[in-house]
């Protein structure tokens, strides 16, 4: 409450709720008036609102640092009560049987974690908006594109700044919707609309996990609010390995798997490259796909109480990293290589979260946002220059003709490969070191997986750059004729991102290299308190983290040397294999190991397996397989057997009813009811003769009677 008193002193911080509303305004303008606006006006509005949001975010975070004074105290601004009410009109029963108010506010939370996301989302988002002005200049649906982008920024900022799981879920669904809309931007292309559907449907699976996890939490703990949950979870009342918390953490991680493209839900992300390249850069590389990491980091207090969930996160992350990297080795579509690279790097981030190195994972998100956005925008620039060609087999020798794109992408390659001095080196090495050292070395297998992934990463990135920019030109003459460097609005963001890709790493230089890791220090308060809890329960974990602060393990330098070596070896191999590729170039991996190449090129046949198992696209004869096949079989069973039984029962009922009707009509009514009536009518016939109804008959009878009497008396 004392924070509310001081919040008024900070102009920007107290108006934090405006940040998502800037892009929302842009989206609304495009929705209502976009069709009638000039392209220049559309660019001015949509880029303008994101620039304003970025500047506002910068000032807000600046305010926040003054507000928190390095304590990491979260700033919370509740605008109004959105769902339920504070006074308990809407109550439910918690697990322990007590009543609790169901309550979710339109509230905004700023702490070091959301501050980092806020800065790079608005920053990278702004650069990509500027880039899109050039990239989309000749495309139809210009206002629609920018409207969706602004809508996405609104949803993403809502997700980041939400102070509770429900509002976060609103943003979570919002980014999913925008992702769907933008993947399907070229909706007249079947592949794009299919990819959009795939992304949406696969994400829904994850979303179900998210909402179930959040509801499990509220059922157990009685609140959606992070500022309620975290102190409660860190109070020490909950045992490590609490089954309900483990279930909640695993469900939340299912959500993260969907959104952040982890095994087994990663399949949508490579297909999402059907969208325009700026979308791939913004949504499917830098920001949206890191939402899962953000959510797990945000829920760190739950995860540290659930070691099983942590192990799952680490293992899934490591497997995803190496799995996606292996596929990336042989893909020919320049954007698909980057897509698998993104999946792989996201795997690294989850590996970091899973081994408890939350700050390292977040740091990798941060650096990755820059170099991966750079690589995607660079690939967009290449595609732009190549008149839309995306297959690297038909590129080559572009470095002279698109020099800015080449140099910036080259820096991006060095950064992601982990060459010392660039961003990826610091963040990736931090993750590898943490996975080696945490839990007293329980995760060393995962370190090896991460190390192998680093080697592969260097190789496929080298392959991408060398095939694109080196060797002989392999494109057709018309395309070659058109090659040109992209306009300023595209190259300037590339240059800025390249500078960031170098500089971002220096925010997190570890002590072992003479730095002070200010990035990690800034984040410490978000993740620190549970270390205190862990100290009570499990001192081993703390020891790993603490050791790093005190003295440097010589092992760390060894590992660092190994991974730098891996990066150089990977790049060197790629250079040897691809840097001189001419028109007759044949894939060296395909030459060396054809079966392996086939498996990797077909992405381990995962899509095919899913087709068999879930989507029902595959048939054996007339029978569908998998879940849909099961559905079809059960539909058949329902229609033929269950409904057949129902129909037969109906038929039997009808037959019985017919028989019963006949019995009723002829036997009951006919024989037993009408029978006596007919009989009595028959028997009463003589009696009725005297009551015939004819007056003259009565008169005749009377006359006969009189005559009878008269004759009787006269005769007597």
């Amino acid at each position, binding site marked *: 409450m004392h924070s509310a008193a001081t919040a008024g002193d900070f102009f920007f911080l107290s108006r934090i709720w405006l940040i998502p509303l800037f892009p929302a305004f842009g989206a609304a303008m495009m929705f209502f008036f976009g069709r009638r606006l000039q392209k220049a006006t559309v660019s001015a509005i949509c880029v303008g609102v994101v620039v304003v949001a970025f500047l506002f975010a910068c000032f807000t975070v600046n305010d926040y640092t003054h507000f928190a004074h390095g304590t990491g105290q979260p700033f919370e601004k509740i605008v109004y009560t959105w769902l339920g009410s504070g006074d308990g009109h809407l109550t439910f029963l918690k697990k322990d049987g007590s009543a609790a108010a169901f309550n979710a506010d339109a509230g905004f939370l700023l702490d070091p974690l959301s501050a980092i996301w806020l800065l790079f989302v608005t920053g990278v988002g702004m650069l990509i908006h500027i880039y899109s002005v050039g990239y989309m200049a000749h495309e139809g649906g210009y206002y629609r594109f920018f409207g969706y982008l602004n809508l996405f920024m609104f949803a993403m900022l809502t997700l980041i700044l939400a102070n509770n799981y429900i509002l976060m879920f609103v943003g979570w669904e919002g980014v999913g919707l925008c992702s769907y809309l933008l993947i399907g931007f070229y909706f007249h292309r079947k592949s794009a609309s299919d990819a959009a559907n795939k992304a949406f449907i696969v994400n829904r699976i994850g979303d179900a996990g998210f909402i179930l996890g959040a509801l499990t939490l509220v059922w157990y703990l009685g609140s959606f609010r992070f500022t309620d949950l975290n102190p409660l979870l860190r109070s020490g009342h909950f045992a490590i390995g609490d089954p309900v918390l483990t279930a909640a953490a695993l469900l939340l991680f299912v959500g993260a798997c969907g959104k952040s493209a982890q095994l087994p839900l990663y399949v949508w992300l490579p297909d999402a490259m059907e969208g325009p390249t700026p979308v791939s850069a913004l949504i499917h590389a830098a920001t949206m796909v890191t939402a899962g990491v953000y959510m797990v980091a945000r829920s760190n207090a739950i995860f540290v109480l659930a070691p099983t969930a942590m192990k799952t996160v680490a293992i899934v992350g490591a497997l995803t990293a190496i799995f996606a990297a292996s596929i990336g080795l042989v893909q020919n579509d320049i954007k698909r290589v980057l897509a698998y690279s993104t999946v792989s790097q996201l795997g690294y981030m989850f590996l970091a979260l899973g081994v408890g190195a939350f700050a390292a994972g977040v740091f990798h998100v941060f650096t990755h946002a820059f170099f991966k956005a750079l690589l995607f925008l660079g690939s967009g620039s290449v595609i732009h220059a190549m008149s839309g060609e995306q297959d690297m087999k038909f590129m080559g020798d572009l470095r002279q003709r698109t020099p800015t794109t080449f140099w910036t992408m080259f820096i991006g390659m060095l950064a992601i490969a982990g060459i010392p001095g660039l961003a990826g080196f610091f963040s990736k090495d931090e993750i590898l070191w943490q996975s080696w050292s945490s839990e007293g070395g329980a995760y060393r297998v995962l370190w090896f997986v991460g190390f192998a992934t680093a080697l592969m990463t260097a190789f496929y990135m080298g392959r991408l750059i060398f095939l694109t920019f080196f060797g002989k030109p392999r494109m057709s003459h018309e395309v070659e004729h058109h090659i040109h460097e992209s306009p300023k609005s595209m190259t300037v963001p590339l240059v800025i991102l390249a500078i960031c890709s170098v500089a971002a790493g220096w925010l997190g230089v570890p002590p072992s290299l003479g730095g002070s890791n200010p990035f990690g220090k800034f984040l410490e308060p978000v993740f620190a308190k549970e270390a205190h809890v862990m100290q009570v329960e499990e001192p081993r974990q703390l020891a790993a983290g603490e050791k790093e602060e005190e003295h440097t393990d010589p092992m760390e330098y060894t590992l660092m040397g190994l991974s730098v070596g891996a990066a150089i070896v990977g790049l060197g191999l790629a250079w040897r294999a691809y840097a001189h590729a001419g028109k007759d170039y044949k894939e060296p991996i395909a030459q060396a190991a054809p079966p392996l190449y086939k498996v990797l090129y077909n992405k381990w046949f995962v899509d095919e397996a899913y087709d068999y198992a879930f989507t029902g696209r595959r048939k054996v004869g007339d029978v569908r397989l998998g879940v849909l096949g099961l559905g079809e079989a059960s539909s058949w069973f329902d229609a033929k057997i269950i409904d057949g039984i129902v129909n037969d029962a109906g038929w039997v009922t009808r037959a019985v009813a017919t028989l019963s009707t006949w019995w009723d009509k002829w036997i009951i009514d006919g024989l037993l009811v009408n029978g006596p009536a007919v009989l009595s009518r028959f028997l009463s016939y003589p009696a*009725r003769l005297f009551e*015939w*109804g*004819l*007056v*003259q008959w009565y008169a005749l009878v009377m*006359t006969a009677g009189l005559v009878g009497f008269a004759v009787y008396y006269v005769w007597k």
Partner: protein
Amino acid sequence: MVPITTLHYLVVAAALFVLGVVGVLTRRNVVIILMSIELILNAVNLNLVAFSRMWGNLHGQVFSIFIVVDAAAEAAVGLGILIAFFRNKETINVDEIDLLKW
């Protein structure tokens, strides 16, 4: 010339009576039946007047005057019923008037 005795009157009256009864029992038209009833009543009148002459007083003649009045009233009521009935049934045949039974 045979003197006309009371017996002669009675024979004529009996003949009229039988004619009336036969008419009532056999004719279908209600108007004819009413006329036949007039015959029966007048046969009785004839008897009364004949006995009145035989006994040499006027009692029988007074009775016959009453019966004439009564016959007029009876004919009026009977024709009234007949007309009301015709309005409903559009017939005055007595064999079709057979609702009064059971």
